[in-house]
C-alpha cells in the first residue's frame, strides 16, 4: 500500500536536492519524489494535488526544510495543519538548524519528526534507510479522504 506513496521534498538548495535523491536511491526508495523549491510552491503543489480528481499524487510524506525563500518552512507547516485534508500528512522537518527554538516551534506546530541534515554522505544514507524502514514500511499513513 505504501509502495507508491509520493514524497514531497521542500528544499531550495539544489545540492541538497541532489544529495537527498541520491540517498533515497541508495536506500532503494522507489516512491515518486516531487520537489518544491520554496514554501509558496509547496503550498501551491499541495493545493493543486488536492483539487485534482485523482488524489493519488497528494503526498503522504513531506520532507520540509525550514529556511526557505518566499514562505518559510514553519509557515508552510502551520498552513498545512489548518487544512482539514492535510492534517494527517506526515511532515518530517529536514533542516540544518538544530536551534532549540526551531525544534520547539516545529513540534508545537505539529511536525511528526525533526531531523537535522547530516553533514556526511554516510549519515545521510543511514537517515534515508531509517526513513524507509520506519515511515515507509512500519508506519501506516492516514487513509485519504
Amino acid at each position, binding site marked *: 500500500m505504501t509502495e507508491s506513496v509520493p514524497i514531497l521534498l521542500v528544499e531550495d538548495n539544489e545540492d*541538497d536536492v*541532489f544529495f537527498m535523491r541520491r540517498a533515497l536511491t541508495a536506500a532503494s526508495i522507489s516512491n515518486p519524489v516531487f520537489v518544491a523549491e520554496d514554501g509558496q510552491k509547496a503550498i501551491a503543489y499541495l493545493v493543486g494535488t488536492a483539487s485534482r480528481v485523482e488524489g493519488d499524487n497528494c503526498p503522504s510524506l513531506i520532507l520540509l526544510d525550514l529556511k526557505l525563500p518566499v514562505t518559510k518552512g514553519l509557515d508552510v507547516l502551520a498552513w498545512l495543519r489548518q487544512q482539514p485534508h492535510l492534517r494527517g500528512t506526515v511532515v518530517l522537518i529536514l*533542516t*540544518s538548524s538544530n536551534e532549540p527554538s526551531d525544534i520547539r516551534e516545529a513540534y508545537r506546530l505539529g511536525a511528526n519528526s525533526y531531523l537535522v541534515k547530516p*553533514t556526511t554522505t554516510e549519515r545521510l544514507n543511514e537517515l534515508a534507510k531509517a526513513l524507509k524502514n520506519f515511515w515507509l514500511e512500519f508506519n501506516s499513513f492516514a487513509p485519504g479522504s
Partner: protein
Amino acid sequence: MTGPPVFEERLLVLLPGRDAERTLQILSESKIDCVACHNLPALCDSIHQGAGAALLTEEAILADSDHCLENALRREPPWSNFPLIVLTQQTSGIRHLPASALLNVTLVERPVRFLTLRSVIDAALRHRRHQYEIRDTLLHLQQAQVDLKTANRDLEIRVDERTRKLQETISELEAFSYSVSHDLRAPLRSMQGYAHALLEDYGQQLDDQGRKFLAKISSGAARLDLLVQDILAYSRIAKGQITLENVSPGDIIRDVVETYPQLREKASVTIKPPLPTVSAHPAYLTQCVSNLLGNAVKFVAPGVQPQVTVWAEPDPANDHVRLCFEDNGIGLAPQHFKDIFEIFGRVNAGHLYEGTGIGLAIVRKAVERMGGTVGVTSELGKGSRFWLSLRRAA
C-alpha cells in the same frame, strides 16, 4: 534668571516724631543702615521686601489692633525669624505682645543707653544674617534635590536606551548565529557530498593520489563542521536563559558514558562515591562532563588506555563542592593552565590531536553560567586533574 533676594542689612525704624529723628541720626553716624517707617503697615511692607531687623516701640505694637505685624511675620518663609527690637517703658512690662512666644523679640527698657542699643542691634543683624545663610543652604539643598531628580530621570532614560540597544545587539547576534548554523553549514555539506559522489561515481578513473585528495576535502569539511557546531554550542551556552536545579553528577556522568560508544568501549571511567548533589543545569553539566571525558579519551599518548577517576572534594568556598576529573593523558605545562579555557586556546599540534579548541571554553562558560568556577592542575606527561566547582544543592 534672577537669584534669591540678597541679605538686606537695613534696620527698619518706627519711633514717634522726635525720638525717630534723633535715633536715626545717631545710628546713621555709627554706620548702621537705617530706614524710617511712618507707620506699622509701611514697616510690614519693608519686612516683606527684605530687612535685617526692626526697631519699634511697645506702643506701636499694642496699637496694632489689625494684627498687621503678626500677619506679616507669619507670611515670612519657614527659615525666617525676623528680629524685633522693642523699646518698653520701665514700669509697664509688656503684657500684650501678640504671639510673643513665636516672635524673635528683644526688649530694651527706656531710657536707652546707646551702647546697649548698639549691641542689641548688632546681635539682631547678626542673627538675621545667619538666617539668610540658612536660607541659602536650604536653597542649595533644594537645587541639589532638583538636580538629583533630573539626573535620575536622565539616567533612567539612558538605561532604557542602552537596554534597548543591548536587546537589539542580542537579537542581531541570535540572527547571526542562526544564519551561521544554516548558511555556513550548507556549503560544507556540498563539499563533503560532492567529494563523496565523485569518489563513488568516478573513483575508478582516479589514482590513489586523486582519491586521497578527495578524502582530504571530506575531512576538511568535517572539521569545519565540528568547528561551526562548537562555536554555536558556545554562543548558545553564553546567551541561554537557565534555571538551576538539584542535579546528581554521578547520574550525569553515567549517562554520558552510556551515550558515547567511544567512552564506553575505549576508556575506563571510575566514580569514587559519594558525589554530592549540586545546583546545576542538567544540559550544561552534561555538556561539561562529555567535553571533559572526551578530552581525556582524546589526549592520551598512543597505545595508552584512557583512565578517568572522578571524585568530589571540599571547595575553599564553603557552599561549593569540587568535582575532580583525573586522567592519565599527556598532561599540560603550567603556562597553559589558563589558555586552555579560552576559545581556540588549544596547545597541541592539530595533526597529532584532533579538536576545535573550543571544548574547554564551553566547559568554562557553562560552569560560570551555573555560578561556579573551573581549573586544572597537571604536569606534562603525568595526566591532568580538571575540576568544576559548583554550589552544593540546597
